[in-house]
């Protein structure tokens, strides 16, 4: 399968207040193919989120290169990176990060109106259909204070999907949700992946990672191992078995 995202010798260094340098990412080589569903796991402070922000062009790497869809991200202007995030990437965050003063529907169509790929009427219809697929169609005109955490994360997923991106990045998308909501969100993401959208997410949760195709393990800024579980088929695969396999693997890595 075609490679969608690739990093070579990607590194990121932070300078602390007392001028001391910390290398958070150390020469990361990574390939994500089109249609893959990948999870990045690892202990806190291992550099998972930093990796996600650097390969999505949200943060500037200190060294190495990142290619997305054949385009080199390092060296791109701020404007070009914004356009790329707007039109070809989608994002889901642990803290949900919706805009406060907009209704849930408006939060979803916001980036679509900016990207102008379709008429506004068409985009409204698409947003409503996404909400329907996500089971939140009745909340279109609600304020963000009038929905639960799980419902808001579905809105964030709809927002991530509205521009039909090539890839969705998720930073602990289920981290703030209860187990029932987290399970539902993962089902939704698996469905989205099955329809062809590449997904990379950062997680601590074995139950979340068990639904992905491939799990990368990070430690101290380096990718130390990976586990290919293969595509999860809800009807055919034993999820518990996948979870157990994963738990064993992680235990072997000291997690």
């Amino acid at each position, binding site marked *: 399968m075609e490679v969608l995202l690739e990093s070579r010798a990607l590194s990121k260094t932070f300078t602390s207040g007392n001028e001391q340098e910390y290398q958070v990412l150390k020469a990361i080589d990574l390939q994500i193919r089109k249609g893959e569903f990948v999870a990045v796991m690892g202990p806190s402070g291992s550099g998972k989120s*930093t990796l996600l922000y650097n390969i999505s062009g*949200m943060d500037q790497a200190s060294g190495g290169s990142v290619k997305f869809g054949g385009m080199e991200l390092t060296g791109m202007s701020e404007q070009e990176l914004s356009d790329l995030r707007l039109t070809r990437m989608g994002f889901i965050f642990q803290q949900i990060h919706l805009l*406060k003063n*907009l*209704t849930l*529907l408006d939060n979803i169509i916001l980036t679509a109106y*900016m990207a102008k790929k379709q008429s506004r009427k068409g985009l409204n219809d698409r947003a409503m259909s996404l909400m329907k697929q996500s089971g939140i169609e009745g909340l279109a005109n609600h304020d963000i204070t009038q929905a639960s955490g799980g419902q808001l994360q579905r809105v964030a997923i709809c*927002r991530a999907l509205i521009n039909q991106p090539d890839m969705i990045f998720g930073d602990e998308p289920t981290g703030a949700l209860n187990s029932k909501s987290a399970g539902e969100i993962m089902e939704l993401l698996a469905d989205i992946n099955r329809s062809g959208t590449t997904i990379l997410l950062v997680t601590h949760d074995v139950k979340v990672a068990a639904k992905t195709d491939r799990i990368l393990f990070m430690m101290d800024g380096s990718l130390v191992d990976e586990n290919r579980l293969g595509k999860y088929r809800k009807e055919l695969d034993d999820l518990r078995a996948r979870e157990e396999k994963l738990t064993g693997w992680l235990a072997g890595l000291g997690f």
Partner: protein
Amino acid sequence: MLIQMLRRDFRRKKSISIALFIFISISALLVASGSNMLMELTQSLNALFKQSKAPHFVQMHAGELNEAEVQKFASAHDLVEDYQVAAMVNVDGSHLYLKQDGESEEQSVMDHYFVMQNESFDLLLDTGNKPVRVERGEIAVPVYYKQQSNVSIGDTIKLSDGAFEREWTVAGYVRDAQMNASIVHSKRFVLHPSDWAALSQRTGEMEYLIEFRLKDQGMLQQFRSDYQAASMPSKGPSVDESLFKALNALTDGILAAVIILVSLLLSLVAILCLRYTLIAAMEEDYREIGIMKAIGIRPKTIKNMYLLKYSALAVLAAIIGYAASWGVNALFTSNMELYLGSAPRSLPLLAVPLIASALVCAIVIGCCKLTLRAFDRVSAVEALRAGTLGEARSSGKAPALHRSRWMPVPVFLGMRDVLSRFKMYRLLLVVFIISTCIMIVPVNLLNTFKSPSFNTYMGIERSDLRIDMQYSEQVTEEFMRVSQTLTNDADVERFSPIFASAFQYVNSDGAMEEMAVETGDFSLFPLEYAQGRAPVEENEIALSYLNGKDMGKKVGDRIRLHVDGTEKEMTVTGIYQDVTNGGRTAKAVLPFLPDQVIRYEVSVDLKEGVPVRDKMEQYAKSFYPAKVTDLEGYLSQTLGNTIHQLRLLTAVAVIVAILIAILITALFLQMAVAKDAAQIAIMRSIGFSLPAIRIQYVTRALLVLGIGILFGTIVSNTAGQSLAGLILSFIGASSIKFVINPVQAYAGLPLVLMAAVAVTTLLSIASIKKTTITEWNAG
């Protein structure tokens, strides 16, 4: 925790604390300077009147004078303390050369009187407020010419009427309690007695000031009636001390009033800023306030902490503002010093500005206390749970994006934010309204003063040319000659003569009083009336605003007027505005009685295409000694000084307004960006470019500014206009209507303000570049 909160508050609010400090300082500075100006004006005016021993009652008289008759009246009258007859030689402007470029004063509307220094009272003073003394061959010129024509000491003043020629060297300037102000169309030049005697025999018209000092000034009205009843010489206007004072105080008085007004507006801005700062501080410390309440710390302690900080700031700022006012007072009082001299140092002069500054400080602290009452409403439970004070909560009534069919998203978001968080933008809106008013009111007032239609407030009709003839022995013949020429001149479209005559009327006490009434056909050159209409019938009369006010007469009331020996009952048909002739004039359709005419005025309109300036010069030569002026020239010479001061003030006001708008926009947006950091980070993460976010903030600022300009313009043209009218009503213009230059007021100034605010916005939100989701999530 208290100290920590206070320290944090100061650190976070460094820029707003500095801005507050500046506002309170400037406010204190302006209020101190304005009140200082008023105090100096009063005191220097009193000093000038005391030093010059200004007369209490003056009758101007042109023509033959029986001095013995005046002396007899004066010595017999109980109220007269002192009296004198001051002779003056009225030199025609076309014979007088003040400027060094050889141009005569032909175009000047001023009457140039050459006089000797008076001996006992009505002393003409030098710039040290000592009676001016000149040697032979020397002359002292009115301070008006120092300012208007740059006449300097050592310059040569020439008088030449063809037959008689004489030159004098300028040895000093004259402060003239009676004729200082530019609005007074008479100016006195002081010569050595022997020079004056030579001059008076050779050229000019002789006129007299019959002057009285009274034992009891309160009896002035009684004295005026007695003087008129005794048929004393009265070919000219009669004036009194209160009018001299009002005219002297006019220009600087208006300036002082405007400065105090600007200061109050600045105080308002400071108070709003303070309120916003406190609310923002409370928002941020809401949780801590809740915790403190929960653990039993009294809210008063927390309140006092903020109060202490801002009170200290206000007191310090007011002290610095007051101290700084000492430095700028000279700037504001320079015109006054030139015309009136400096006031003697006195306790009130020091104390009043200090009290005024203290008042500004007290108001600021008072408002701080009021705002802090919000603390009482903080409930510990609510604070701990909600963590917000609710000031900036969304209103929920704003439009939805999915209903917007065409508006660009950043513009929509900017607009929606203003609508949904309107409470937060209130401060900015009020500041923009104030800025607009500070800019528009002086600009409109200046344009009104500069406009040819200012004639409305001067009681004169609008015409291309105006011919003025003062009383002389031959005035009636001259008038006939002028009339004849105008009738035969093919260039003249129409003309209308007006005769001003002195008539007696019965005042409210039943006593006879004199009043100058203009007679003629008022339909040819109609004047805009404040109330009612021009007189048409023989028993109708219109009064100037001040005359009406003094006499207690309104439209429909009746006045008993003595015309040619018989008493006529006249109905007041209209009130018009007039700032000339002391603001006290009247207009009626009465028979032409050449013996009683004190002056003639002819309004002339020329046919289209006839060059006004050429005609004016032609008439000035052929109608000599009548004064021919075009309306614009007449207005600019009369109001030149006021316009000059007003122009200065307008320039300062526009700059101040723009600076206020810039400062508050910068502070407001810095705070807004800090508050919105999370939202900005989210937008950037989902693909909003920096320009798209900048457009949102520029939209917010410009939308609020747009609303501010709209309301500011409405307020300026309604309340601002009324305020200007209130100030100007003291000199006879009761209902000023702003003459608005639409390009300037509705396009130019708003665009300048918009450009300033847009640039400020872009600069103030530079920090959004550093706001990213990675930082936000990390922080």
